[in-house]
């Protein structure tokens, strides 16, 4: 039996090899014939060849394949796969950073004369997104070594690395592709590989359900993008993105709106976000880190790309983006507050941060419409920097959550507690991530929010339109900041501090080095961007200027060097105080117990819970959060068991369910009559359909 299975494995692998080699045979002549089509920009100073980014994608894919091929040797396959993926990503990352710093634009075209040329465009904005993708991927890959340690599922883990590699490579592909077919190819690859990653534990019912929700969402969104690009093709007669700007204005609008819905559903913008809280919690944590940290940013990239390609300068689009940003931002964090599941909570925080990015974009667009270039620059730069920042701290937080879940075996905040004593490094990294995501100085979240605030405060004196937009943006940011503080003090306070509420969390162990190191590195980057923001802000504003969105330099950026001074003072003062207190009170410290109001035997279960902590805020936003209570109250003199359970549902999901899912499933119920499982009928349907179509063409069209 065992022998048989081994044989089967080899057979599978051989099949895989065969498929791969067939693909390679088809591709290789094209690769050989191709040449670099066009090069623009200055030639000197190029350290790396222009196709480095493609090479890096290939290395990443190779890493995935090696993971599958060697999957019999568990540790070896993981190490080889992770190393190759990391090397590929690092190469791509370095290349991307040189492109950003040297501020160059290249176009690479393979298969020039063919129907569908493989055309890529490498410019600072696409390389910025690629760099973010690759940076997070390196960390997630390293993290996965410790996280993916189930020896019984060697093959599944091997394929998981292949999917991971495809996901990373296709995200890079999305950012660099320069015609709609290639773009959609990578887009679908990204969607499918991420779906397969979400389904890693697909034998569980819950995971299966969430996975399908994700699949439906991502494909429905994908269809909108298809529609948008098809419309563009009909109007311009070309699949190349370069011709997008030649459309009539009304078509431009339609193309943008269709594409916007598609990209927004990927990004998790408010009414289209419902897949996030399903897909992120069930995926393995390093996958959630990549999906939430960078994959949803591809939606943002898509929106920015459409804005640039179509050259949109429309006040209503600006307002649309701003309003959706405000809604996503505030409601995202409110829904997050209502969650008990740590990963669902983080998923909703992605909605919030996408909201912040959109607020920045919206303020920038509105500023651009009113010809106020300072506002445009600050808004766009803030949005772009927040893309980077969110990728960093969100993947850090997901990694922390993964470590905690692995260590305690529960997703629920209410069952953790006291983890800071048991997992000090993870907790410290999580603390830094929480401070950063709440936009608190001296961490990186504050820098991007400050940029957006500055954009907003610039728009108060020119016109009423701009004043309204700025006011809404600023107030929304302030509220989001306060709510995020509430939410992350909840997570940290209830699950990392206090006393452990279950045995599992009391016995929690610190995670292995391979999981801790990526978190430490990400936390360090968060601190570095936070304390020394100047370099990053200037690079980002350069990118924003290159987009031809804005052309001026901005004197207001001089705030950022001063921030560094303030932070240094802050750190110096705190360290002085720490030393002083340690010296004076070294001998005067006593251990005691928490004040329990004279009640001498409190249990850990009597601590404040996460739902009680968040309840005032959630109640405040009642119209937007549907709370379901299952209650069995305490009754009688000798009460029996009492129960209280609350669940929250978000508004968009409920409305979609009522208006979209129910009618569609009702309609499909009627169709089920046709689908009775008899293969003969299906063949019949095909024949009938083909005859009808042929008849239509021959009889009516000709």
């Amino acid at each position: 039996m065992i022998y048989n299975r081994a044989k089967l494995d080899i057979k599978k692998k051989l099949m895989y090899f065969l498929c791969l080699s067939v693909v390679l045979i088809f591709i290789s002549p094209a690769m050989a014939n191709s040449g670099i089509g066009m090069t623009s920009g200055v030639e000197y100073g190029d350290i790396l060849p222009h196709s480095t980014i493609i090479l890096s994608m290939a290395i990443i894919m190779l890493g995935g394949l090696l993971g599958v091929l060697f999957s019999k040797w568990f540790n070896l396959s993981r190490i080889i796969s992770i190393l190759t993926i990391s090397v590929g990503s690092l190469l791509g990352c370095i290349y991307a950073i040189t492109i950003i710093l040297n501020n160059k634009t290249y176009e690479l075209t393979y298969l020039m004369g063919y129907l569908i040329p493989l055309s890529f465009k490498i410019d600072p904005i696409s390389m910025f997104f690629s760099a973010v993708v690759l940076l997070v991927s390196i960390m997630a890959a390293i993290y996965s070594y410790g996280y993916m340690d189930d020896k019984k599922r060697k093959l599944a883990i091997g394929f998981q690395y292949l999917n991971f590699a495809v996901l990373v490579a296709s995200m890079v592909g999305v950012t660099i592709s320069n015609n709609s077919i290639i773009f959609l190819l990578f887009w679908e690859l990204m969607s499918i590989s991420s779906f397969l990653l979400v389904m890693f534990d697909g034998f569980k019912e819950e995971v299966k359900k969430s996975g399908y929700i994700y699949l439906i969402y991502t494909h429905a969104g994908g269809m909108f993008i298809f529609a948008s690009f098809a419309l563009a093709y009909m109007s311009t007669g070309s699949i190349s993105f370069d011709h997008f700007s030649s459309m009539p204005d009304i078509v431009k609008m339609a193309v943008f709106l269709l594409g916007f819905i598609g990209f927004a559903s990927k990004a998790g913008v408010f009414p289209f976000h419902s897949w996030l809280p399903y897909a992120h919690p069930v995926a393995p944590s390093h996958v959630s880190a990549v999906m939430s940290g960078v994959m949803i940013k591809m939606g943002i990239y898509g929106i920015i790309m459409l804005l640039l390609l179509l050259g949109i300068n429309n006040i209503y689009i600006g307002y649309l983006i701003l309003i959706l940003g405000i809604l996503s931002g505030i409601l995202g964090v409110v829904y997050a507050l209502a969650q008990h599941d740590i990963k669902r909570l983080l998923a909703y925080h992605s909605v919030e941060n996408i909201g912040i990015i959109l607020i920045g974009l919206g303020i920038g667009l509105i500023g651009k419409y009113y010809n106020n270039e300072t506002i445009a620059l600050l808004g766009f730069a803030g949005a772009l920097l927040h893309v980077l920042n969110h990728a960093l701290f969100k993947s850090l937080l997901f990694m922390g959550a993964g470590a905690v879940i692995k260590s305690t075996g529960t997703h629920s905040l209410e069952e953790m507690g006291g983890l800071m004593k048991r997992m000090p490094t993870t907790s410290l990294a999580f603390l830094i991530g929480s401070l950063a995501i709440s936009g608190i100085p001296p961490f990186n979240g504050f820098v991007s929010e400050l940029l957006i605030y500055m954009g907003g405060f610039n728009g108060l004196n020119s016109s009423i339109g701009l004043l309204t937009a700025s006011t809404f943006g600023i107030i929304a940011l302030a509220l989001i900041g306060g709510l995020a503080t509430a939410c992350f003090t909840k997570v940290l306070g209830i699950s990392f501090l206090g006393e452990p509420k279950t045995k599992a969390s009391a016995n929690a162990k610190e995670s292995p080095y391979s999981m801790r190191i990526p978190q430490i590195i990400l936390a360090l980057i968060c601190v570095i961007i936070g304390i020394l923001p100047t370099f990053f802000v200037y690079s980002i504003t350069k990118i924003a200027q290159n987009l031809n969105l804005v052309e001026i330099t901005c004197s207001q950026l001089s705030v950022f060097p001063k921030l560094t001074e303030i932070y240094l003072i802050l750190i110096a003062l705190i360290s002085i105080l720490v030393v002083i207190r340690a010296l004076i009170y070294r001998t005067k410290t006593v251990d005691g117990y928490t004040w329990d109001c004279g009640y001498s035997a409190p249990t850990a279960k009597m601590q404040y819970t996460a739902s009680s902590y968040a309840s005032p805020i959630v109640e405040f936003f009642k119209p937007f959060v549907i709370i379901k209570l299952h209650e069995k109250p305490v009754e009688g003199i000798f009460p029996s068991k009492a129960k209280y359970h609350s669940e929250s549902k978000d508004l968009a999901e409920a409305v979609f369910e009522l208006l979209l899912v129910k009618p569609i499933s009702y309609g499909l119920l009627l169709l089920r009559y046709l689908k009775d499982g008899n293969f003969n009928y299906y063949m019949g349907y095909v024949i009938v359909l083909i005859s009808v179509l042929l008849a239509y063409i021959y009889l009516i069209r000709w």
Partner: protein
Amino acid sequence: MESIIYYILTVSLAPLFPAVIDKIKAVSVGKKGPSLFIKYYDLIRFLKKELVYSKSTTWIFRFAPLIIIITYLLALLFFPIAGEKPVISFNYDFIVVVYLFALSRFFLLLSSLNTASSFEGMGASREAFMSFLAEGSLFMTFILAVKLTGVPSLMGFLGNIGAQILWHQAGIFAIMSIIVIFMILIVENARKPIDDPDTHLELTMIHEVMILDNSGPDLGLMEFGSFLKFLFFGGVLSRLIFPVDYNIGALNYLIFIVGLFIVASALGLLESISVRYKLPRNTTFLISSFAIATLALIFSIGVK
């Protein structure tokens, strides 16, 4: 140099004002009341004591008091005391200051949740709820101030020219801002009718309950932090009430301090005649402050 002297002087006067509030409260019910220097004695007493740490706590609990005191000390460096140029001043410094407050609040909330006490969780929950609403009102007032003065810094709208600009246009904006900031001051400093600093039941406390487990010098630092917070918001009010600009620095400073005394006395009077709101009413209070600030902004649309 002058600004540093003002800074040191003002910080050292900080414990005086809460004592003024207590004194007025005592006098208004016919008691003699404590000495005006009571808070200094308190601080010295706290510093002499030992530190008691609950076994449930971690380094966050020990670290929080330090970060709280430092952030408030740092925030005051940005404040244009008596309209003088502050020690540190740059454009958009007020955002940095508000977020420094957020940093201290984050650690205050964490340190209170660190003790594993239900009381403190309750207080933290209330504080988190109210502070996010108060932040909204505060930013609304900043928007108004930046719109009217055109200078996006604390020096810009509390310095000599800025504060006077707010009084133009029949003083409506200054008066509305004073009302809003006063309401924010009540919330941020946990005074009646939002929170009762003299309450003796943990279940009804907000701010007091959060520092229930802090002891000795840590408690002293936290108390001093709250005095400094009062100084900040009271100082804003003082500058708004008396936006004077004489050539003699000492006179300006004297008027600034008088303004602070007036704010403290107003608070004391309010505390003697008002009762504490039920908790749900607090929301109404906060939303009204936001509404007033919004109204002021709407009025300001036509102003050039």
